[in-house]
Structure formats: structure tokens, C-alpha cells
């Protein structure tokens, strides 16, 4: 079976009413993955034996009618550690790495009865926007197998969009949840920085990284965020703010009446595909029709986001990735004569080109004589980008715009040109720099491929984004359209 006609609520009803057992649901999920994934390549590892064992235990004790996540199979991006299940971050460096603990997100989901079906493909160490930087395989876009799924959470997005799973978790450092969600026509939330614990997320850029849910519907997304959000003693950047029951606020009474929405002129500027612009302008009209006001605003420092981001993210990455030294875990070169060789040869063999590029950019930006000109300057520009958002969000409930300048492009088309790849992130990156919540929801099609709309909110106000996303979803049918099996749309 695929999950095109299902959401968390209907699956839960089926399980509670025993129309299907957890075991049969898990088996059907793996059968469909076995049929779909040899071409789609969304998964790096499947967790079949453990999943079936847990399913049998749940059938034995019965599905808790008050726990909507009990017995639900979903997928986890491969940079989130899972105890006893190989976790590679799509890098040769970690090809045989078996974590000894679960990420907080994973243990929370496990405790709630979720069944992890497997680990999804991604750009190596989450560096990239097409999943082509995976050391192991190339994931396809669920809508067109000749196109990229986006990235870095491309495996998670393709798995959800193709109906392999009802939901998956990804991570987003510069757009890695929102952009693949946009490319695959699904809902992806990058929550506020500090909303979800990063304990067990293989670190890329610690001041920017955030885990988030990827789903077919806004409501499912809201359910999963409430399930995993909150303070964690293992990640002291997590907020102690209370976590709302986001989904409880989504019903027939939910409305955007009276809301003020800002549409930054910089988000519809040069380089943004005309059909993408048209979809976003149509969405703005839809919001006006639904009783909100939409007016043009400005984020004057937005255009500097990409430069500031690639300095900051690469600097943090160059520091975080120092731990991969071939000693305690990970790849160790066989070609060594001394300890220095272990470090240098293991890293040179274990890392792919994009990872090396970022490590070198970061090392350069932090090195003596360049720190003030690059790293400090970027950190100052980051402050200005934050100030721009604050000014707009002071008198607007949220900001809307596209997620990416274009729909999904062809596999192989851009991967050899890092500058073009980096510029693609121009609309998602500033949100990470400011630590704000950002969500992608389906808002139309361009050249037959899905277009995502990005909603950006105030810190810790995912609630407004879910409400606005839900209302838009109820008023449109973009989210109900599904790719044909085999990606031949």
C-alpha cells in the first residue's frame, strides 16, 4: 500500500478499530518500499527486523486509542543517530558507523510508539541542495525521476511524496527541509531554533541546524512537531517555552481573517522563475480572498544572506567536522606511515568534494588575518538580517514568499557548479540565520513540477504558520495531487 489517501488521523482510526494490525501496516509499508525504492532511491538503510518486532509487540498489547502516533511507521534522515542502526550522514566517513544511543527526537518518537522503517538519503553531512552529494546513491524526485528531489533532506521528501511513508524527519541548516518539500509538493517545517533538541543530530552548523517534520498535510506536521518539541537537558540551546498542541488549533473555525501578511519584494526579484512568481502572487490573492491583508515589504539585507551563510555555516562545519580524524570511529585510511597520515589520509579519502570545499572555506574564514574580514563581518551582517525580519514581523503576523527560485531541476544539471547551487538557497537561508520558523506548503505547479510557498513567522510562533498553512490547504487542492508511480508525470 502507499500512503496517498492516508493521514495520521485516518491511520490511527484504522489501527484502533483493528481494520489493520500494526504488523500488517508495517509489512505493507516495506512491501511498497521494496517495489518503489529500487528506482526512487530514497532509503539508505531499512530497519525491517526491529520494526516488525516492535509491531508484533504493539499488536500484542493493543494500540492506545489516546496516542495518535502508536504504531505509525515513519522514516528518519540519516544524519539523526539511531541506536544499533547504521547512521552514515551519506558519507563514506561513516559508512560502517553504528550509534550507541538514540537522538532525543528518535527516543521520543520510539516512546510514543512510532515505528522507524529506515534511514533516508541526503547530501553528505547535509551539505547540498539536491541529494546528489550523497556518497552512496542518487535519489529521484517523486514527480519526475529525471529531476533532483532537492536537498539535503531529499530522501525524506521523496519517501513522503511517493507515498512510501506518511511522514519523515529531516534537518534544515539553510533550507534542507523546506526546499526538498517544495520540490516534492509536501509540507515541511523548519521550527524556531531551539524548539527541537539537536542531541543526536550529526552537527553541521550548530547555530543554524534544526530538525523538523515532513508530511503530506499541515495537520500531520503540527501533530509531529508537538510530539518532539521541547526542552532537552542534552541540548541546552533548547527553549524552556511551553509547546502548544499545534494541531488542536486547526479546525473548521481556523481563519486568517484580519491577519497581516508581508510579501517581501526581494522574494520575487531577479532569478525567480515566472511561474513560481505567478503561483505565489495567486496565493497572495487567495489569502486576501480569505480575509487577510497582504502588502509589499522589504528585507533590504536579504541579498547578503547567501554570502553571510556560507561563511558562518562553513566556519562552524570546519570546526564540527574536526572530530572525524580516523581514530575513535569512522573511516581510517589503510595507507598510513604515522599518526599525521591517519588524520590527513582518512579525511581526504572519507570526505566528498562538497564537504572538503566547505571545510576549506570555513578554515579560510576563521584563519589568522582573515577572521575580521570574513567571519566577523558575516556575523554582523547576520545581525542586520535579523533586524530586517524583526522590523517586518513587528506589524505583520507572518511573511510569505517562494521557497526556491525554481522548481526541481534535472539530475546532473547544476551539481558541478557550486556557486549556482549556493545561490539557489537565497530565499531559505536568511530564515536560518535569524532562527525563525519557516514552513513550505504546496502552492501550485511550474513546468509540471510542484512549487512550494514559504511562510515565515515570529520566533516560537509556529502556531500562526500552521493556521495560515491549514487555511490555505483547505481552500486549495494542490496537496491532494500526487505523483504517478514511477515519476512519469
Amino acid at each position, binding site marked *: 500500500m502507499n500512503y496517498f489517501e492516508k493521514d495520521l488521523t485516518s491511520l490511527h482510526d484504522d489501527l484502533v478499530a483493528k481494520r489493520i494490525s500494526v504488523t500488517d501496516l508495517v509489512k505493507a509499508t516495506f512491501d511498497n518500499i521494496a517495489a518503489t525504492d529500487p528506482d526512487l532511491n530514497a532509503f539508505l538503510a531499512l530497519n525491517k527486523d526491529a520494526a516488525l518486532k516492535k509491531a508484533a509487540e504493539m499488536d500484542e498489547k493493543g494500540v492506545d486509542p489516546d496516542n495518535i502516533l502508536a504504531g505509525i511507521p515513519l522514516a528518519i534522515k540519516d544524519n539523526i543517530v539511531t541506536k544499533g542502526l547504521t547512521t552514515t550522514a551519506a558519507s563514506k566517513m561513516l559508512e560502517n558507523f553504528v550509534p550507541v544511543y538514540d537522538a532525543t527526537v528518535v527516543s521520543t518518537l520510539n516512546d510514543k510508539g512510532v515505528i522507524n522503517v529506515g534511514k533516508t538519503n541526503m547530501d553528505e553531512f547535509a551539505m547540498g541542495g539536491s541529494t546528489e552529494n550523497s556518497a552512496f546513491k542518487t535519489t529521484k524526485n517523486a514527480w519526475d525521476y529525471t529531476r533532483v528531489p532537492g536537498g539535503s533532506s531529499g530522501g525524506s521528501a521523496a519517501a513522503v511524496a511517493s507515498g512510501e511513508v506518511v511522514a519523515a524527519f529531516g534537518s534544515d541548516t539553510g533550507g534542507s527541509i523546506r526546499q526538498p518539500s517544495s520540490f516534492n509538493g509536501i509540507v515541511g517545517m523548519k521550527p524556531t531554533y531551539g524548539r527541537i533538541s539537536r542531541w543526536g543530530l550529526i552537527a553541521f552548523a550548530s547555530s543554524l541546524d534544526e530538525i523538523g517534520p515532513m508530511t503530506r498535510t499541515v495537520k500531520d506536521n503540527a501533530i509531529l512537531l508537538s510530539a518532539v518539541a521541547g526542552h532537552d*537537558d542534552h541540548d541546552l540551546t533548547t*527553549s524552556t*517555552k511551553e509547546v502548544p498542541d499545534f494541531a488542536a488549533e486547526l479546525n473548521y473555525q481556523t481563519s486568517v481573517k484580519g491577519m497581516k501578511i508581508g510579501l517581501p519584494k526581494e522574494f520575487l526579484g531577479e532569478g525567480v522563475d515566472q511561474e513560481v512568481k505567478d503561483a505565489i502572487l495567486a496565493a497572495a490573492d487567495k489569502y486576501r480572498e480569505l480575509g487577510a491583508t497582504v502588502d509589499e515589504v522589504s528585507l533590504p539585507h536579504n541579498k547578503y544572506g547567501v554570502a553571510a551563510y556560507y561563511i558562518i555555516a562553513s566556519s562552524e562545519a570546519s570546526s564540527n567536522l574536526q572530530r572525524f580524524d580516523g581514530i575513535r570511529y569512522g573511516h581510517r585510511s589503510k595507507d598510513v606511515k604515522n599518526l599525521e597520515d591517519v588524520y590527513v589520509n582518512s579525511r*581526504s579519502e572519507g570526505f566528498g568534494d562538497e564537504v*572538503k570545499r566547505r*571545510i*576549506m572555506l570555513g578554515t579560510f574564514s576563521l584563519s589568522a588575518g582573515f577572521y575580521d574580514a570574513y567571519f566577523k563581518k558575516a556575523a*554582523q551582517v547576520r545581525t542586520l538580517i535579523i533586524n530586517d525580519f524583526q522590523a517586518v514581523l513587528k506589524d505583520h503576523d507572518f511573511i510569505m514568499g517562494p521557497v526556491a527560485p525554481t522548481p526541481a531541476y534535472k539530475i546532473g544539471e547544476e551539481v558541478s557548479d557550486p*556557486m549556482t547551487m549556493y545561490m539557489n538557497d537565497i530565499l531559505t537561508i536568511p530564515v536560518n540565520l535569524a532562527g525563525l520558523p519557516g514552513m513550505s506548503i504546496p502552492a501550485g505547479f511550474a513546468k509540471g513540477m510542484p512549487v512550494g510557498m514559504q511562510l515565515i513567522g515570529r520566533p516560537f510562533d509556529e502556531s500562526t504558520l500552521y493556521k495560515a498553512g491549514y487555511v490555505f490547504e483547505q481552500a486549495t487542492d494542490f496537496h491532494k495531487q500526487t505523483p504517478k508511480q514511477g515519476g512519469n508525470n
Partner: protein
Amino acid sequence: MASRIDQDQVQHVASLAKLSLNDDQLKYFTTQLDEIIGLFETLNEVDTEGIEPTSSVSDQINVMREDVADNWGQRDALLANAPESEKGYIRVPTIIDESEDE
């Protein structure tokens, strides 16, 4: 256009990062890094006089906790990830090039 980073500098940065590059890679990365650093330099257009740098956007500041040792009891599982281990220790190459220590 003047180059912003040359092959010697890229070689130096690679050595700081414990990466080795062959001649082809050195050429390839130098061209790319030069172009990307050109992008970085667009930040010079921005007046940042008196602007505080941002290093974290967390709402938590200086959270303290007790420093308590916790025995995970997972020595074998941890060592299973080490490329080489022996008698409960991680093994590294014994051949150390002494000239590098001077």
C-alpha cells in the same frame, strides 16, 4: 579579475584542515574557492560600523548543570566503532615520524 586566493593559500588552508589535495584537485578547488570568496566580498558593500555580531539565536543563555560522571556501560559498543582496538583500548599506528615532533 585579480585572484583572491592562490594555489599556495589553498594548499595552506588544506593543510590546516588536515586534507591533502593532488595537483588536479588543487587547481579545481582554487578556481572554485576564488569564485566563492568573491561572493563573500560582496559583504564589503554593507556598512556594519557599530553592529554587534550574532553568534547564537538561542533564547537560552549560560545554562548551568551539575558536572556528573555517568557510566553508559557501553565500552564494547563504542569500541566496535573504532577502526582498530585491542584489550579495551583504541589502537593507533605505532610508527611515529619523529622528525615531525621537533
